[in-house]
């Protein structure tokens, strides 16, 4: 070892300033688009100088279907089937937002058992979405074992969904206005507890630190608290920058005020903090489901009038703004009705519309090309939610 050091004594490491560029002008444009293996259904136009990104401009619209106007042509029971497709990675949470909006406009009292079932299904969907976040972030930064492990464990939850609602990915409007469509099967509660034990095992595996991933994620894409609020970030992205806020605690909906759970917060705001926050939120969700399964009462699961729904039930006149916490942040629906059986205007506010355009453009400025996938996937994006 000592002889090797002597030979290299005259030459230190080569710094990047010592390398002379071949051409004078090293500016170019790069389109990090949907066909790139490291990106989703979303394009970003980058202006690059050498290795540093000078500016970024988002190019959305690959998945735009015009959701808000599609909802104006359909009655609420048809809209509840359409609302799972707002974001394909967390369908039950969006089902819940739409059902709450129609419940509040019509003034319905949802039965107690239905509220507990809604909370259990929403939390299972949140766990499943955070598993996808972990898997896809690992793939984007080169840790392939994490990707395969995450999608292996996710299938236990999809089997539960199939047993309870009938569909692996899309539950066909299970959470509908008035309650839920059908009750749990007889052995559902035991199976849910077994799956939660497996989830505990998975969280222990996810907490093992991988040095390559840490080197790519620490101090990369730092988002400070004032910038996060100014640019409209919500949910885990805001909590990883040091702000302790959660819609489930600020304005509790359904029965969240009866459970005892914590809100994890990190202070550094880089990609490593966001990625670890997802793992801690899974633990809190497991906690909530266990408490809900102990306290769940017997009874009806749907409001009496909606057991055999007619297609043209009139919605009373009025307007309502409902906020929920989906896995990616704050989701809201603003619904206006003028007395007809179809909503007059349904505006959908998703968390990813703000994360993928203002926040991403702000974070990519001044970073290196090699860090672009780590920043991009650490924001937990879902392009379907942005384009609607």
């Amino acid at each position, binding site marked *: 070892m000592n002889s090797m050091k002597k030979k290299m004594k005259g030459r230190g490491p080569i710094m990047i300033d010592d390398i002379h560029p071949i051409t004078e002008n090293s500016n170019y444009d790069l389109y990090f688009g949907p066909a790139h293996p490291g990106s989703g*259904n979303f394009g970003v136009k980058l202006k690059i100088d050498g290795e540093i990104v000078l500016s970024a401009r988002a190019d959305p619209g690959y998945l735009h279907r015009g959701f808000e106007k599609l909802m104006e042509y359909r009655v609420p029971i048809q809209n509840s089937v359409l609302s799972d497709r707002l974001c394909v990675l967390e369908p039950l949470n969006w089902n819940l937002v739409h059902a709450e909006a129609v419940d509040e406009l019509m003034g319905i009292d949802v039965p107690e058992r239905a509220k507990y079932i809604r909370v259990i299904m929403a939390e299972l969907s949140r766990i499943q979405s955070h598993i996808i976040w972990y898997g896809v972030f690992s793939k984007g930064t080169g840790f392939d074992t994490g990707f395969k492990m995450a999608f292996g464990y996710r299938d236990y939850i999809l089997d539960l969904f199939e047993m309870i609602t009938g569909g692996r990915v899309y539950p066909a409007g299970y959470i509908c206005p008035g309650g839920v469509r059908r009750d749990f099967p007889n052995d559902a509660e035991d199976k849910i507890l077994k799956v939660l034990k497996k989830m505990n095992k998975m969280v222990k595996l996810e907490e093992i630190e991988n040095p390559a991933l840490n080197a790519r994620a620490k101090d990369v894409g730092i988002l400070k608290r004032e910038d996060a609020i100014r640019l409209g970030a919500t949910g885990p992205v805001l909590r990883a920058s040091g702000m302790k806020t959660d819609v489930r605690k600020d304005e509790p909906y359904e029965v969240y005020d009866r459970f005892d759970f914590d809100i994890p917060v990190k202070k550094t705001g880089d990609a490593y903090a966001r990625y670890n926050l997802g793992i801690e939120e899974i633990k809190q969700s497991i906690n909530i489901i266990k408490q809900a399964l102990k306290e769940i009462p017997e009874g009806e699961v749907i409001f009496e009038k909606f057991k055999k729904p007619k297609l043209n039930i009139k919605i009373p006149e009025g307007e309502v703004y409902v906020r929920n916490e989906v896995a990616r942040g704050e989701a809201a629906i603003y619904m206006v009705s003028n007395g007809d059986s179809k909503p007059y205007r349904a505006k959908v506010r998703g968390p990813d519309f703000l994360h993928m355009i203002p926040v991403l453009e702000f974070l990519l400025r001044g970073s290196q090309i090699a860090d672009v996938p780590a920043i991009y996937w650490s924001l937990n994006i879902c392009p379907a939610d942005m384009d609607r």
Partner: protein
Amino acid sequence: MVKRSKKAKTMRKLIKSIWIFNWFNSCGFAELVPVVGSRWDMERFGMIIVGTPRHADVLFIAGYQTIKSIKKAQRIYEQMAEPRVVIALGSCTMTGGMYWDSYNTIKRLDDYLPVNIYIPGCPPRPEAVFEACDKIFKHVKELE
């Protein structure tokens, strides 16, 4: 010795393993990624995901396409080398599906790309994807 056309001979070479280009649309993402994952492992059949269309044999169109994204899918199809196969997943590629009255989605994929196999479902299960790949192998074996 059976006489086969040149196209049939090249297509028979496709039987051994097929390589897929990763054009995962939104709805297909939730059901095609488990096919890659460890429960329904597709590497045991020799199928892998590649990053460039020049290496790929099969293009999966999984889910609805908008006017903006079908233009890119056509460019990708032109860059693939012969022999190539297009598989259409989901009911949105056949009739427009749930978004039949949307102004921005395309209703029949057959008008834009030549499709070899359709897989129904919303979204189709991973077992259906494997059955479709099996049908491709049989279809190719019987080509004249």
